[in-house]
Structure formats: C-alpha cells, structure tokens
C-alpha cells in the first residue's frame, strides 16, 4: 500500500548460492543466483580464483561435522486471501481508531525460504521456513500540521491475530497521533531518558556491534576487549542473543560458519559473559565463538510497570526513535530524540521536536534507573522499556 491505497501485488522467485573456498588458509567468497551446471562450475572456479588471490591466514575455517539436521519452521504455504483480509482489517481499524494517521507505506509479505548449508567436513543442514512480515511507515496529520514519521516492522508465523495486535503497532499509532503538536524541551539539563522497546533495539545494535562484536575486538578498539567475566552493566541487565526463543519467529537454526545455532548471553546479571564472534575472529583472538550470529536480542524484564516507573521521574523524556549517527566506538552518541515526549513531575507531557540528546552507551548501562515489566516481542527481538539517568538533554 502506498499513501493508504493498495498499489502493488507481487510474487518473486529467487535463488541464492554462496560458495566459500578456503585453500591453504586463503579465503574467497562468490555469490550468485543461478543453479545451472555451467554457472555452478563457473562460480566454483571463480571462488577458487578469489581464494588464490588472498593472503593466507590459518584462522579461516568452517564448522566441523556434528549432527546434521533438517528444520521446518513457521507457515511455509501462504494464505493469500487471509493475508489480504488482515491488511484490509488493519486499514479499517486505523481509519476508525486513528483518524489522523496517513499510512505512507505498508508492505505485507509472506516469505518462503528453502535453504541448505553444507561444507566439505560433511556438515549439511537444511531449513524450510515461512513467515509473514508487516512493515509500516506512517505519520499523523491535521491540516498542514504533521507529526514525524514512524516506521516499524513485525514478523509472525501465522495470521491468527489482527496486525494491530502484533508487536507495538497499536501503541505506536496512538503515540504518533499525539505527536502532531510538539515543543522543544528548552535549555539544557541532565535528565532521565525512557527508551521505548523499539528504540532500545536501535541503541543496543551499535553497542553490541562495537563493544562485543568482532570489528572492535579485531581492531583492538573495543572498550570491553579485556572485560570478559567482569561487570560492564547494572546487575539487573541480562541480554541474550536467542534465535531459538519461542517468541522469535523463524530464528536461524545454523550460524554462517555452519554450526548449529544456540542461544547465549552477552551480558548476564551485569557481567560480560561472551563476545559475538565468528569462527575466524574466535580463532584469531583465541576466544570462544558466538553461539549464533542472528542478532535476535532478548533483554530480561524488570518488576515494575512502565507507568509506575514514569511516575517516579521528575524531569526527563521518552524517546521513540533515535536520529543520530552511529555512536562512536567508545559509545559516545549524540543526535535528535524523535517521536518522543517530555516527562515532568511523573507524568508524560507534550510531544517533542528539535530536542537533542547526548550520552555514552557504556556509561548508560551503569546508570540504569529501571527496566519495565512489559516486553515487546516483534518476532525478531523481545525488548522491555529501559530507563537511564544522566542523559544530556537539550532543546532549541
């Protein structure tokens, strides 16, 4: 749907083949999308040539043979009529309950994937999976006044529920309706920041990549490079990568290196318990590899409701989206707080515009005020509200 109207219906058939060659410690990768014999031979030749061009590095390797398995996940055959019905239902609900919303774009899809991963050690995993995906982009309008736009996505393995009930779609629509008239915070102060579940994902993406991911560790710039087993966050924070969690839809069953995927904790009760490393990086750094590479983040909930938590905040903001650059590799960030609200005397006030925030992701983890009891599961992650003190908040 574009501009609130159905515009396109499409069916796509594609193939992907990625070959990786490691020969004498030299690695090359070739990927293309045809399976005919001539193309396969040509690709294999190109892959070996690419590897031959590389420098040797003994740390490249594939997963060894363990237990091969075939997986079937989700709903592999789409119910097209019901899918279309759910779209119409959502648009009718939006029109009735959120009349100021313009749905700039809604993309609804069913994706069926049949994939196999094999290597020369005998590893062979196959997966046949199907899932429904809902992507929305919308804003609210009154005359010539408009809110900021908001985008969100959900993955589901069935069509049992109306789309409005998935993830945080209903709350997001309601919040955006209240963001047509905005104010800036005025001045500069150090305050409390309530991060919505969707925005938690954005912020932790950079943190995990730079602090616990292999880029920062291979280049030696990660502030956590020597902190395995040490406290890096408030003890109430437990953060896992969990593609096998039942709330994750069609999570990966294998890693890119060919291992069977397992859930694992990056932070457990505030302590750094593992890094997010490929087999290559693990070999190179002499550290354990990550047990999956899917980035399905699950953060453990707290024991208070978000309303209870907000009632204790004297002055702060709610942030629904962060418009900023990639945080620096030491965690420094600054940018614009989008889709947010002012909090004063324990109550949510007007929506915000032109409000900047600055802080440091690593410091934030140690200045946790609270984690909400509520979690939002969007099929890709399971995240609560997180509330941090000590954020620099400035207005126009």
């Amino acid at each position, binding site marked *: 749907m574009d501009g609130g109207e159905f515009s396109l219906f499409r069916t796509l058939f594609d193939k992907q083949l990625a070959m990786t060659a490691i020969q004498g410690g030299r690695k090359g990768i070739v990927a293309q999308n045809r399976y005919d014999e001539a193309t396969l031979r040509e690709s294999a030749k190109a892959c070996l040539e690419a590897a031959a061009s590389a420098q040797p590095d003994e740390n490249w390797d594939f997963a060894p043979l363990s237990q091969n398995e075939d997986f079937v996940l989700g709903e592999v055959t789409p119910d097209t009529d019901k899918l279309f019905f759910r779209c119409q239902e959502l648009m009718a609900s939006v029109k009735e309950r959120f009349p100021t919303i313009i749905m700039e774009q809604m993309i609804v899809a069913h994706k069926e994937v049949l994939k196999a991963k094999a290597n020369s050690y005998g590893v062979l995993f196959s997966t046949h999976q199907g899932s429904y995906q809902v992507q929305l982009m919308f804003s609210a309008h009154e005359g010539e006044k408009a809110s900021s736009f908001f985008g969100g996505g959900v993955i589901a393995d069935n069509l049992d529920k109306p789309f409005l009930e998935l993830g945080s779609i209903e709350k997001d629509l309601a919040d955006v309706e209240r963001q047509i008239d905005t104010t800036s915070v005025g001045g500069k102060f150090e305050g409390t920041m309530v991060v919505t579940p969707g925005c938690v994902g954005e912020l932790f993406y950079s943190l995990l990549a730079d602090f616990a991911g292999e880029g920062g560790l291979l280049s030696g710039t990660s502030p956590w490079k020597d902190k395995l087993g040490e406290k890096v966050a408030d003890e109430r924070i437990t953060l896992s990568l969990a593609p096998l969690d039942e709330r994750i839809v069609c999570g990966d069953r294998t890693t890119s290196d060919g291992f069977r995927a397992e859930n694992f904790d990056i932070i457990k009760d505030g302590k750094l318990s593992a890094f997010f490393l490929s087999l290559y990086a693990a070999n190179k750094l002499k550290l354990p590899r990550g047990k999956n590479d899917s980035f399905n983040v699950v953060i453990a909930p707290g024991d208070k409701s978000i309303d209870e938590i907000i009632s204790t905040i004297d002055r702060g903001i709610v942030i629904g989206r962060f418009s900023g*650059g990639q945080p620096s590799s030491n965690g420094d960030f600054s940018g614009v707080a989008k889709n947010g609200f002012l909090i004063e005397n324990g109550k949510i006030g007007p929506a915000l515009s032109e409000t900047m925030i600055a802080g440091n992701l690593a410091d934030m983890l140690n200045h946790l005020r609270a984690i909400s009891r509520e979690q939002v599961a969007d099929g890709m992650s399971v995240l609560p509200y997180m509330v941090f003190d000590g954020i620099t908040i400035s207005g126009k």
Partner: protein
Amino acid sequence: MIQDLLTNKKYLFASGANTELRAQRNLNRRAVLLNGALVGNVRTEQFGVSARVYENGVYGFSSTAEYTDETVKDVLQAASENAAFLARHAGKGKGPHKAMAPNRIVTAYDLNDVEQRTYIEFIQALDGYIAQKYPDLMSRTIIATADSMEKLLCVSNGSDGHSILPRSYIYVVMTMAGADGQPVELYEVVGGGYGTFDRNYTKPEDCYAEIDKLYDRLRQKAKDGVYPEAGTKTVILGGILSGMLAHEAVGHTVEADLVIGGSVAGPCLNKRVGSDLVNLVDFAHTAFGQPTPLPLYVDDEGTAATDAVLIKDGILVGYMNNRESAERFNMVPTGNARAYLFSDEPLIRMRNTAVLPGKSKLEDMIASIDDGYYLLDTNNGQADTTGEFMFGVTFGYEIKNGKLARPLLDTTISGVAFDMLKTVDMLSDEMIWASSGMCGKKQPMPVGMGGPAVKCRVNIGGTRWRPCRRRARTRPRPTSPTPSPMSSTWTEASSASSAPCSTSSSP
C-alpha cells in the same frame, strides 16, 4: 551483455494495460584489508527477469532468477495475474498511463569485470605505502569496491532501453590516538566514480596525494581537535554536506510518493522554502555541460530521463515523479522510477541531486563570519518527512574573526530543511559531487549528490563526552524488516540501518 529475449515478447503485452519487462544483472566486487590482513574478499552476481503490469490503477509484479524464453513468458503471465487479483480487490477504475512516443535508448559501456586479484593487489600497494609512511597510525582499513547494473528494458508505452551503470571506489580509513590517547578516526573516498575499476585506478601512486591529505587532516583532528560550542550558529557547509542536505533533507521530501504519504513538501508547492539564492535540481545525465556522476538516460518505466527542477530561486516548483504520480500532480515525469535488482519494482528515486552554485568566493564567505564553523565532511545523516534533519560531522574548522581556526572533533548538526534554507545568504561559485552513496529507500540505489559551499544557520551540538572515535565497522546482520523509506548508505546496502530514516556514510 544481456541477450535480448524481451523484444520478441511484446506481442504478449495486453492491450489496455501498461507492461514493462526488464532483464537485469548486478555485479558487486569487494576486497577489504584491515591492518594488512585481507578480511573481505567477495564477488556477487544477481541476474534475472521481471515483469510489471499496470491495470485498473494497480500494479502486478513478478520476477524470477531464470532467464529463458519460457521464464520471460511466465513472469509476464504472473504479473498480469497479480494485477488482476489486486484489481479485483482494490481496483481504482483508472486507464493506462498517458501515451509516450516509442524510442530505444542505449547506453554503451565496455564492462571489463577484472579479476579479484586486481582489487587486492591494488589496495595492498596502498596499504604498504600507508604502513611505511605513517607508522604512528593505530589502525588502517582499505576497501576496494565495484558495482554495476546492466538493464535491458522493454515497455508497452515509452522508451525501451539497454543501459549499464558501473561504479568503483577505494575507501581509506585511518585511526590515530588523540590528545587523550583515545582513538580518533577519519576516512576518505580516494578517487573512483563512474566506470570500472581498471579505468578508475591505473596506478597506486595516483592515490598517494589524497591519502597524504587524509592523514594530514586526521593528524590535525587528533592533535588539536576541539568540540564546537553547542547552539544555533552560522556555518559554511562544504559541498559534501550541502549535497547530503540536497539529497536527504530536501530531496526525499519532494519525492512524490512521500508527498502523497504526507511529507512537508505537500502544502509547500509553489511557495517559498528557501532564500532567493537557493536552487536545487535532480539532474539526469548532464549537468553544467558535463556528464553527471551517475548518468541516467532512461528510467525503468521507459521514461526518457530529463532534469527535475525542484527549487527555483527559493520557490518549491516541482516533485520527482513516476508516471502515475506525475499524472496525479499534473506534472511531466522526468525519469525518476528506478529499481535496484531485477526482483525490485521501480520506485521514485533520485539520480544526481544538487544545490546549484552561487557567485561568492569561498574565501569571502569565510571572511564574512566572525564566529562560526566551516564543516567539511560527514559520515551519516538522517531526515524526517517533516524536513527535520541531523547530520554527523567528522571534520571541519572553527571560523574566528573571518579566518579558519582550530580543527573540529566529531559533532552533529540539525535543523528543519525549509527553515534552514531561508537562512542561506551566500553560495560559493564552485561545487563538488559525490557518487559513492547508496540511498536506501526500501531498496538500495546508487545516487549522486553535490553542492557548493553554503553559508547558513544550523543547530550544532557538541558532546560532553570524550573525543569521539570512528572506525570501519563489522556489523551484525540486521534482522529487522523495518522499512527504510528515507535512508542512504554511502557505501553498501547491506549496512542499511533498521531505523526508519537514516544515512550512513561510513565505509
């Protein structure tokens, strides 16, 4: 070259509908050296055919990776069936698009797909130069990339086409210890642009001057860099930043699909959105008598590409359209419907978007500012459909009493585009282009952007924290299906943010 299996299928096009057939091949090549170690060595190819049918006001689309006479017929049939399905449920009672004169537009390019060894050996030579000459660096990353799109297009109404769009670039990322020992980073696109790698890069020595300049800037930033004072300030945006402004903060808001979706530009047509000095154009294939960085001659709907004039003398005068939106707004389509892969439907996209130069000399612009900033490089930016934008700034200088002063550490600027453009009071008489960008509005897309130095008022924010540091990133694989309607990544589609609206220029 893609064999033509399309033209002889025109007899299958249904009357009363618009039909497009497109066969397309995308090639990507990439090699990455991190401190001398080859950590990336990848070649990819995606090839297939698609069909799109417009009937009763809705589209049906289908694609497949097989390219034979039979599969061309299959996708055509599937697209027709999909259009019929949607028309049954949500038809709008519209007829086909307005007729266009038939034509065939061919862009020739001898696509020399060089071996992977060529990329690796070239950046190894650069790495050796840097390692030997600049041993004080904490880390160095060199990335060679090349991509190309070859499209064969056959339409029922308009221009058929056969085009090839090749690009190639080298990125150099350097990290050095700052004054407090924390790493400070800077990167540069060294050479490159339109064309294959072998034509853009013949000798490593040709890159040394740009590498030396990058090192010099990094050294200034690391040793003497300061944070700007936060607040609303008079600044000069260098051409890279004004190009980002043209694309991200203004360009997206005047794409007709986003206008229909409620962007700030909707109520602003034929109204003042900038000072008299501001002119903004999305160029197709020629600008100022020269080829644009990424020339486009025909779009994927068969519209011959012409320039889209967006802002003239400060007045918003037009949008970028596809054929359907052009009819809705009673505008002339200018060839902005572009698809990234064979399996993508065309969307309204920019081509080469630029703020036009003015008449001022840069030195006079600097001399006119008592207390401000000259902002030269950016690595990312984000904008809203309201026009509110945020750009990261990675390099610049203070301006004190009309002269450049201390270099800047990483900071951000923000503002509202149509407010900020009204503060523009000087534009330099020279402009620069950038073309390594990859816009990420639903699909990635190579785009060019450019501009002159622009004097204006923006919000600039320091940070209270330690000096920022940046480096090449190895990202975990995004799993979010969140749409990125207005995002751009300068370098690679795979790193597109899951945020609804973002631009990243980190390599």
